[in-house]
């Protein structure tokens, strides 16, 4: 008893802070977890989460037989895997190339410029790109016409949606992504390079045999995070390029939930989708983490 009083006397202030912080987490993270129950209920706003009627797996059945869900899942996977293939390595390659440059004012200016797009929101990036690609007034189509081509409705066509997503993703994030790789490269012990140079290894061989293995843990860390978020294809980015003409390829799980539960009134069905997404993402994170640790790299859990 005395001990408890002593602890409270010493730490009462810390516990007050903790109460505020935990209050926040309980209200905005744990109460919504309780709200997941509506996936198994017929949610009626007037009855609330607690009062709505239990219906078991009815909404699961309904939503899994909804064709649009599978289209959204397919699109999400296509976008996410394309990002992994086309966008994941770009920051790494840029970082290795930047590292070969003398660390002077020119490199500083380059870095400042290529980091910049990261701070511009998707709405603006999307707006600029849409205007750039506009068939009547856009610069790109002016150039195409100048060279005798036909103007293209880039943002209105399904076939050009994915390239637009990948290119704008690289534009926004590739420069910024170099920062952590450059830091990892700077952390490599210079003696390793010197030893390799004495052995007559060329610079390119030094990069392949020393630099890349040394930054492998950073690469695997980024890979784990990418795998864990495979079901989130980037709501902010996709929604600015989404329109009625490309919806067959641009509807992703997040926009599907948004259309269903926020714009529409299918709260229970949308919760089912959100719940499944959350569970699968957590499982993927754990698996990726385990695999990474098995291969001798660091994990994140």
């Amino acid at each position, binding site marked *: 008893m005395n001990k408890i009083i002593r602890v409270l006397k010493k730490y009462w202030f810390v516990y007050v802070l903790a109460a505020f912080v935990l209050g926040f987490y309980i209200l905005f993270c744990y109460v919504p977890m309780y709200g997941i129950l509506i996936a198994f209920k017929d*949610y009626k706003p007037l009855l609330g989460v607690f009062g709505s009627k239990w219906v078991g797996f009815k909404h699961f059945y309904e939503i899994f037989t909804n064709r649009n869900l599978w289209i959204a899942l397919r699109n999400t996977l296509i976008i996410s895997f394309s990002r992994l293939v086309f966008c994941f390595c770009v920051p790494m390659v840029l970082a290795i190339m930047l590292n070969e440059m003398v660390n002077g004012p020119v490199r500083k200016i*380059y870095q400042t410029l290529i980091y910049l797009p990261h701070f511009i929101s998707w709405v*603006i990036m999307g707006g600029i790109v849409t*205007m750039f690609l506009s068939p009547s007034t856009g610069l790109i189509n002016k150039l195409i016409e100048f060279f005798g081509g036909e103007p293209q409705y880039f943002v209105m066509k399904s076939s050009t949606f994915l390239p637009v997503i990948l290119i704008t993703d690289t534009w926004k994030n590739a420069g910024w992504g170099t920062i952590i790789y450059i830091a990892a490269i700077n952390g490599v012990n210079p003696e390793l390079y010197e030893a390799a140079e004495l052995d007559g290894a060329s610079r390119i061989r030094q990069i392949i045999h020393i630099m890349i293995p040394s930054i492998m843990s950073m690469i695997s860390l980024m890979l784990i995070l990418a795998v864990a978020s495979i079901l989130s294809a980037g709501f902010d980015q996709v929604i600015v390029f989404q329109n009625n003409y490309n919806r067959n390829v641009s509807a992703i799980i997040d926009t599907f939930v948004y259309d269903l539960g*926020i714009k529409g009134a299918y709260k229970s069905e949308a919760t089912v989708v959100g719940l499944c997404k959350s569970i699968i993402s957590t499982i993927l994170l754990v698996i990726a983490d385990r695999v990474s640790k098995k291969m001798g790299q660091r994990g994140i859990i």
Partner: protein
Amino acid sequence: MKNRGFTIFNYIFFGVLAFVMVYPFWYAFLSSVVPYSDLMQRTLPIIPTKFDFSAYKEILVNGLLGDAYLTTIKSTFIGLALSLAFTVSGAYVLSIEKLPGAKIISSIIILTMFFSGGLIPMYILLSDLKLINNFWVYVIPSLINTVYMFIIRTSFTDIPLSLREAAEIDGASECRIMLTIYVRLSLPTIMVIGLFYAVDKWNELYTALYFIIDYKLYTLQAALYNLLNANSGTGVGGGAIKTVDEQVKYSAVILTILPIILVYPFLQKYFTKGVLLGSVKE
């Protein structure tokens, strides 16, 4: 042994890359100040030929983005202040290893990084709390970013315990220890995190799209989203604005990115530092 050819290639490559990445913003600026007919006379305009600020005037006089600007500035400042207060408090609680119950507190918080209720339960909660279509929805549900909190916690745990012990012997209260030792010594990190919060708030889009109905309460990004999509009819509420001139659109884009472009060059090194702090393993 440096390869000369590669070095030259490297400089040219990054020069071209930097140009390609930044030119669209410059083009947007040109389009906002140069009459459209003039812009099209050359294939790749670089320097403005003559100035025409009528589109800016239209935005400012008609107050096209006025409400959104106010909402965003308000949410950025209020959100920044409250978020920092909560985040620093949380980081301080988590940094005291001797605190009885520390394990339970950190488990409760860490679990939320792996599992969340998702969008719809959040929506229901916010509507129960009367936060739907309410300005405070920009501030309260996003008070603490857990990753940011752990970054500040790491910086707190790097401070030698001997400083705390000395203060304890002098009879300093926990509040005093937190403010005069921990917050003061970690101020650079806290400021970097504040910068991240500010940019997050400034670029806030989906809170408005998800939880705000009234256009008057839209953030700048959401208002801009509607404005840019006004002609194509794909905006969330495309009906608010009928047709919008391209030049007005570009001017709105420039007015929205201006604050970021102006402060970015001076703060770039702090942003870079923030990313590196974030990649430190817990």
